[in-house]
């Protein structure tokens, strides 16, 4: 790894990256891609050249719908609010605490954490200093009331918290119901942005007095939409939003993080741009053309375009792994193909699809082959337990056929190349996937062809994402509400019949993997495919979640992901990569990791990118 450009920029980050690479499972994504992504033609850039340039232009595809931090939990909204509000803290490339508003935390036994705020945090609009009281008030009046009066979508993150108490002006203590050694990594606290309690109070009181609109009015108050309260709490201050056009913020002259540890050098004068303009360019070709010609500083790239841009001297690309897994689910509910309830049949189908081919030929190398519901970089991934299907020798359509021959009910059978069912007609399955991106369609076709090689007829159906969810994934519960798992797989089925569902992307939660129970336990809230584990998945998960020490957790989760790879409730196809495209003058200050971007406000430019 030769990183001239970050010599002296972030030695600490470099050292840490090297250390991380030694950990189990990390080598794959970091060494190969990380080095290349950060190399750049403009060698010899040093910190002396770092100055403040007029503008950072970030092109995005869509407008945000929410600007109130209580509501802005979707990706597009988060992109905007984090320009003005850093949030409590974030996680670095090693998934370790990285300080923003919270300067430090203290683990007081596994059921109690104390967080201490910096003492230079100032709200705007005369709301004074941000103190422990703001957090205590937030917990007691936004998180815990029975009715979700402000419409905060992530209140459930706090379900394991029993109290938040003020200890001193700047320190508050979070007490947990069950011990959780990984609490700091959970989204409960990190990334959480709050409003000043003094701002929220009047609305709360109106709500208590019976005004049902108070929450909505809070979220849409000018003061909130214009971030008047944000003070020095983010790298930028609000300038204006032009609907479906742009979101413009100005460099915050009083930014609290400037020149502070950790990485005081990097944050010395941060941010290094007078203003940050987020432009909405709905058409991908337009964003790419702007990037190639230096019209914008940064945009995210589609997987199948990234390679073309790597050869553009004007662009620097960074590929980062994500915890999002794209799978092909087997419908084991009543309206799916019955043999999918047999683990061996599922294995056979997974054996027949070559994942490397999808990664290489369709995703252009910008994705990683998956074998279980956890990325290889996760500390909970244990290679030794995982059984592979569809890569190298485990891609074996011949073997798959003989497994089917053996495992399918005796009425089934091969007639030459054609798989016949009990009535003597060819087995026909429905493969459904979402429209929207070319890669979904191309890989859908590829999967269909691979399955057809097993002698099965495949009907492909491409439907919009929301239709895929509403008509194929959700079932109607007894109370008539669409639910991802309404109950017994023999009784509750989706509106439309399907057999294999490709292209949905699911979060594998490498930081807190017990969440995956939602997909794979029999009663899990998101178990739409009707999977009933053969092994004791629930028990393992329970053990893992409550394990007193991290070693034991790792072991248990290793077994969980081994079990999932063995049982193949779905074909765990690929992990998405995120590809970032930067203007060539941008100097990046962090190593490639799934946490990419946690220090983005310390990025600078060797020369004005748009001068």
């Amino acid at each position: 790894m030769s990183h001239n450009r970050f010599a002296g920029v972030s030695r600490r980050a470099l050292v840490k990256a090297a250390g991380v690479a030694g950990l189990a499972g990390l080598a794959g994504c970091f060494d190969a891609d990380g080095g290349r992504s950060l190399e750049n033609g403009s060698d010899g850039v040093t910190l002396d050249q770092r100055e403040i340039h007029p503008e950072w232009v970030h092109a995005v595809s869509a407008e945000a719908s929410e600007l109130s931090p209580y509501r802005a939990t979707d990706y597009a909204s988060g992109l905007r609010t984090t320009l003005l509000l850093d949030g409590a803290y974030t996680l670095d490339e090693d998934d370790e605490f990285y300080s923003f508003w919270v300067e430090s935390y203290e683990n007081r036994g596994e059921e109690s954490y104390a967080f201490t705020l910096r003492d230079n945090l100032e709200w705007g609009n005369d709301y004074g200093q941000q103190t422990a009281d703001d957090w205590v008030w937030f917990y007691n009046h936004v998180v815990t009331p029975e009715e979700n009066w402000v419409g905060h979508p992530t209140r459930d993150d706090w379900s394991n918290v029993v109290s938040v108490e003020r200890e001193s002006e700047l320190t508050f203590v979070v007490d947990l119901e069950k011990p959780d050694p990984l609490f700091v990594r959970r989204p409960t606290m990190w990334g959480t942005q709050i409003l000043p309690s003094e701002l929220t109070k009047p609305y709360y009181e109106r709500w208590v007095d019976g005004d049902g609109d108070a929450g909505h009015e809070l979220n849409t108050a000018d003061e909130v939409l214009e971030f008047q309260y944000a003070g020095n709490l983010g790298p930028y201050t609000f300038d204006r939003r032009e609907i479906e056009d742009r979101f413009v913020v100005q460099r915050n002259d009083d930014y609290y993080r400037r020149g502070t540890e950790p990485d005081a050098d990097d944050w010395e004068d941060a941010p290094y741009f007078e203003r940050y303009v987020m432009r909405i360019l709905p058409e991908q070709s337009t964003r790419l053309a702007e990037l190639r010609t230096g019209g914008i500083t940064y945009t995210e790239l589609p997987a199948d375009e990234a390679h073309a841009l790597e050869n553009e001297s004007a662009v620097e690309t960074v590929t980062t792994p994500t915890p999002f897994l794209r799978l092909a689910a087997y419908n084991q509910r009543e309206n799916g193909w019955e043999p999918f309830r047999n683990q061996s049949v599922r294995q056979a189908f997974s054996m027949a699809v070559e994942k490397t081919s999808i990664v290489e030929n369709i995703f252009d190398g910008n994705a990683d082959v998956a074998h279980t519901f956890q990325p290889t970089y996760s500390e909970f991934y244990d290679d030794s337990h995982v059984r592979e299907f569809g890569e190298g020798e485990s891609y074996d359509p011949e073997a798959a056929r003989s497994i089917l021959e053996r495992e399918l009910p005796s009425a089934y059978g091969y007639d030459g190349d054609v798989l016949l069912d009990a009535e003597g007609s060819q087995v026909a399955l429905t493969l459904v996937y979402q429209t929207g991106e070319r890669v979904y369609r191309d890989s859908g076709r590829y999967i269909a062809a691979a399955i057809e090689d097993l002698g099965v007829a495949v009907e492909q159906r491409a439907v919009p994402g929301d239709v895929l969810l509403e008509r194929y994934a959700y079932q109607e519960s007894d109370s008539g509400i669409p639910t991802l798992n309404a109950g017994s797989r023999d009784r509750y089925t989706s509106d439309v019949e399907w057999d294999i569902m490709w292209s949905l992307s699911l979060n594998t939660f490498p930081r807190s993997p017990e969440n995956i129970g939602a997909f794979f336990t029999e009663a899990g809230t998101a178990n739409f495919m009707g999977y009933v584990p053969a092994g004791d998945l629930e028990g393992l998960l329970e053990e893992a979640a409550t394990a007193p020490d991290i070693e034991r957790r790792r072991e248990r989760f290793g077994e969980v992901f081994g079990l999932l790879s063995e049982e193949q409730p779905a074909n765990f196809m690929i992990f998405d990569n995120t590809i970032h495209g930067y203007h060539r003058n941008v100097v990046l200050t962090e190593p490639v990791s799934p946490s990419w971007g946690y220090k983005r406000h310390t990025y600078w430019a060797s020369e004005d990118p748009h001068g």
Partner: protein
Amino acid sequence: MAWFVGRRLVWALFATFLVVTLTFALLAASPNPETSQAAWQAAQDGSDPEEARALVDQQHGAGDSLTTQYVSYMVSMFSLDWGQSTTYNEDVTSVIANAWVYSAITVIPATIIAVVVGFGIGLYSATHQYTTADYAATLVAFFGVSIPNFWFAIVLMLVFGELLGLTPISYDSEVPFWSLEHLSYLVLPITVLATAAVASEMRYARAEALEYVSATWTKTARAKGLSETAVTIRHVFRPATVPLVTILVADLVGIIFATAYVVEVIFGIPGLGYVSYQALVRMDTPLVLATTLIPVFVTIVANLCQDLAYTVLDPRIDYEGRSP
């Protein structure tokens, strides 16, 4: 005439009412993609998907009964108090007020170009039938009508914006409004918008003019000793305006509105076409209803103008004595 205009206005009001009602019904009948997305997200995170659904619905004002919603929308529509957009949390009127300018600066010049250039070329090629210019014009019209706007816009952007660097790639709303630079940002969008419209206007103009080029009265006019220009303008173009006006309204409204959306998406222009589309995608009922009103209103007014223009253009039509 007043009676006629009055009757048309009443009809326009009724048509608007119908369209708005229909739009409301369609919106009420279709599921909100944001709801299923939010619930999916919640289920993944192990939170309560039903609460997530309820939150989104509440945000969209879907808590009340359909009748209550319908009545309140209708009242607000017709009292011109259009309420707040549920996605942008801003007054619908101000969303539209901001967006229409961007549509106007592309649509109005494109319309003018379409009419002037389209009619001009059409007239020229009709009066110069069988010449090279005529064939060239026909070819251009064919090209303009058959080329997909989407593709054409991207090609123009890549060729003139990226390859040749003659124009900016995407629109930039921060460019001073009254400046030459602004014009450079508008050249490509207007070109795309105008191409389809010019081609179509020109085809009609040529066909209509051709009918009058061979009319006996143009021969009469020439026999009177009028100059070719006078013959073309007074005796070919002027009578051709009657059928052209009919086509003009329907055609331009159709072509320009449909193309405007495509152009706005590609060049990143925050105009009305794109905003209305987004409103629809995001099921932003107040904004959808208000933005539905605009094309309906434009069409109705344009049709009325068209009918009034008839009486001026064609002495044979008279709404006073006969029914329309």
